[in-house]
């Protein structure tokens, strides 16, 4: 495989990009800026010709697994197909060349797109207000929690606790803390639902809200949501929905109708914008009327068919992004919604649910299903049986790589031993699901028949298992530092 670092390609005097010469009188730096402000020696950035820069990053790129290549069933990540038309239209210069401080009358198309997207997302979720500002799901969570905080403060209250189920994504408790709350964890029942007795025992006047992912990270719909709402109302606590799994709900239920007060969406999950190797994402936050007045500013509003940025929200929590959010992703999500249309969203949910249940059925031949409950768009296996026979969830995951398949999310949620969390999404064909099932079933057989091939996997990847403990022990995160 390709093994060069960009620094190892560098040779003094090589040029990657030629800039034009100055067309203004070329004064020296020292004439324009006092010497004591100037760096004494230039940054030793690589010196690599253009052709080699292109080859370097191209060579690196092919070492990645990606959605365009093959199946990527990471649970709760919704690695669905990223339509090419999204990319093409988001790349129009009428969008990419816009500066965020341009006068509003010169960006009416962009503002119209944002306004309409706000309306579409409110319609799909059943809410009355929305901000497009948060740059990712976790920032959306923080924003939602700050809104909850504001709600209580303006009522003269200061409850400090957010309840979070034990199945929650790690960002939920982390977001609660960064928003100034503390958390209490609520247990799940053997059926994978919120344990209402445990919830009641933790609910009190200090409870500010409950953060629930629905369907949960177990892929199970929380059917007690109305009961939970009633409990929360007893102490005036609010209900936050983590919308990571919204893909399963389109057209079946709307979080706003179900009794939630606030939720975030992940446009990079449910609305097909690409994940970019770890971002950018986009995490709009939708709210009901209780919280509408506290949303971050600005919000896009419409008056007389003109569009404006409204900064006049006296009780706003402030601003969470320097500008208006990840606009280029908003364009992609807008394109997607227009492509799917009013009838299509329900089909997305239906196909994602059927794909998950079909794959679960096929895998249940050999793998233990973590919870015996109907699944939505994802499900969690336990590799406990396989572990007893000698191969852990991690080994199975690594062996899957040899089949050209990306493994599921492993060891999450934390409440399932040897968890493998599988989300196929609606964009995968039955043949792909079958191929994944065959691979998983073959690995299960290999555990008994040829265990080494599983335990030493992967065999076909650019590198084999990596020494993660060594990476921490001998920390090397900066090439220049190590060569000092």
């Amino acid at each position, binding site marked *: 495989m390709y093994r060069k*670092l960009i620094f190892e390609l560098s040779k003094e005097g090589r040029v*990657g990009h030629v800039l034009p010469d100055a067309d203004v009188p070329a004064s020296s730096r020292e004439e324009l*800026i*006092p010497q004591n402000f100037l760096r004494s020696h230039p940054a030793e950035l690589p010196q690599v010709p253009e052709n080699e820069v292109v080859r370097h990053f191209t060579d690196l790129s092919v070492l990645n697994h990606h959605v365009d290549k093959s199946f990527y069933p990471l649970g709760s990540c919704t690695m669905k197909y990223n339509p090419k038309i999204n990319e093409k239209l988001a790349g*129009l210069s009428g969008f990419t060349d816009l500066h965020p*401080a341009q006068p509003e009358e010169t960006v009416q198309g962009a503002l119209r797109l944002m306004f309409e997207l706000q309306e579409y997302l409110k319609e799909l979720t059943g809410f009355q207000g929305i901000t497009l500002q948060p740059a990712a799901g976790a920032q959306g969570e923080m924003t939602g929690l700050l809104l909850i905080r504001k709600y209580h403060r303006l009522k003269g209250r200061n409850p400090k606790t957010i309840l979070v189920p034990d199945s929650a994504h790690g960002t939920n408790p982390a977001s609660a803390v960064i928003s100034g709350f503390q958390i209490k964890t609520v247990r799940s029942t053997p059926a994978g639902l919120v344990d209402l007795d445990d919830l009641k025992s933790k609910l009190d006047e200090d409870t500010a809200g409950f953060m629930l992912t629905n369907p949960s990270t177990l892929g199970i719909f929380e059917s007690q949501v109305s009961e939970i709402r009633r409990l929360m109302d007893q102490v005036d606590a609010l209900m936050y929905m983590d919308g990571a799994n919204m893909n399963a709900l389109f057209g079946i239920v709307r979080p706003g*109708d179900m009794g939630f007060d606030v939720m975030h969406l992940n446009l990079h999950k449910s609305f097909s914008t690409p994940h970019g190797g*770890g971002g950018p994402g986009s995490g709009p936050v939708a709210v009901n009327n209780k919280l509408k007045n506290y949303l971050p500013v600005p919000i896009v509003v419409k008056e007389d068919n003109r569009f404006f940025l409204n900064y006049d929200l006296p009780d706003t929590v402030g601003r969470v992004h320097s500008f208006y959010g990840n*606009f280029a992703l908003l364009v992609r999500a807008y394109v997607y919604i227009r492509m799917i249309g009013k009838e299509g969203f329900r089909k997305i949910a239906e196909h994602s649910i059927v794909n998950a249940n079909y794959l679960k059925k096929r895998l249940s031949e050999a793998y233990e299903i973590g919870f015996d409950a109907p699944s939505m768009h994802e499900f969690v296996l336990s590799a406990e049986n396989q572990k007893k026979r000698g191969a852990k969830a991690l080994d199975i995951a690594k062996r899957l790589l040899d089949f050209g398949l990306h493994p599921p999310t492993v060891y999450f949620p934390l409440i399932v031993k040897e968890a493998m969390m599988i989300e196929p999404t609606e964009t995968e064909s039955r043949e792909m699901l079958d191929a994944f099932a065959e691979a998983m079933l073959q690995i299960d057989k290999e555990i008994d028949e040829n265990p080494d091939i599983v335990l030493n996997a992967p065999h076909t990847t650019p590198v084999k*298992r990596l020494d993660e403990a060594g990476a921490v022990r001998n920390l090397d995160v900066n090439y220049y530092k190590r060569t000092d």
Partner: protein
Amino acid sequence: MAYLSNSDKDFAEMLHTIGVDRFEDLIENIPREIRFSGAFNLPEAESELGVSNVVGELADENRTFVSFLGGGAYDHYVPAVVNALISRPEFYTSYTPYQPEVSQGNLQAMYEFQSMVCELTGMDVTNASMYEGGSALAEAVLLGAQQTRKNKILFASTINRRYREVVETYTANMGFQLITMPRAGFTVNTGELESLYDDQTGVFVVQHPNYFGFLEDMEAISAFCRDKNLILIEVYDPISLGILKTPGDYAAHIAIAEGQSLGNAQNFGGPYVGLFSATEKLVRKMPGRLSGMTVDSEGRRGFVLTLQTREQHIRREKATSNICTNSGLMALAAGIYLALLGKQGLQKVADLCLQKAHYLADRLCAIEGVSLASNAPYFKEFTLKLPVPAKSVIDYAMKKGLLPGIDLSGEGYPDHLLVAVTEKRTRQELDALAETVGEAVRLVR
């Protein structure tokens, strides 16, 4: 319908395999009373051709100009290589490198990005990226305050107001006191630092070049912070470090930047990329992902996400930050940009910005009644004092296809204009702006 891979026939057969008759059977545990039974008030589905027309019209409704707008987003040239590479689906349709064996491309690119930003800034460690400049600064303030365990954070008066507002939002419930130095001109009055300090002050935040484009007396600020044992957070412009002294030179503990200038489009404000660097001492408290070099089981070089015990997916409520998805693709663009421009290219971009900005400022200041707002040195951006409201100049110039700068009314300076000049602006455009501003001033007066 678009993007579904299975036909109705497949769907029916799969239901049969699952062991149910109808789809409804799979969701019978969802209570009827909370179901959505209506029809969405959304447009009908479009074809690709149809949506191209709809969205193409929206793009056409926007107007672009020869732009001198800056204030945190800049019209730098993006070499063709950058978009060609970040448009590779191997990069943009991949995800967080949770399985390093099949993510070496992203992990190595991250490592190279981290390293180059360290070299650029003179800092020890850089993470894999934050969302954008404002939230990166907010997380820096949280880290600095946590490190010092003191609750007063002192802000220079010349910081981008948008960044400051994001910090306020992030810290609203933390019990911190954010103190902004009194505004006195367009640079920090370093003589005032001493009087604003008390023993509860733990962090000082400065932007250099500052929001108004001017250079701060970083030597004095650095000495003050060292003397008082304050955590120094410097917000910098990555292009400026082609020629200017680095945050490392000023002994900053944390260096923050908006990285959009490095190979990313303006995109009406996002997605951008927050650059977050720190001293080695702070590495275990830093937010965000880090790629580290290691070896595989056969001793070959490879990369993994490292020090993950700082992160939310391991540490939950004890994590150093809640950040998960960040700005990977934009960091990749920045890394490609730095690798491509390299040692000479980055200096050249910086020199071009410097020279053109000074040429333009000289021409503008030749207009009667127009002057620079400060005598301090500047890099690629400067604040101009006008004899007329800035808005009147902007309105006039827009008719000629020019956006001359940002109206500083919002900062309390209605007759001030913030002008940014990148290497893209030609002499012809600079001359046109100078002539146009001159005409506008004469007309309005």
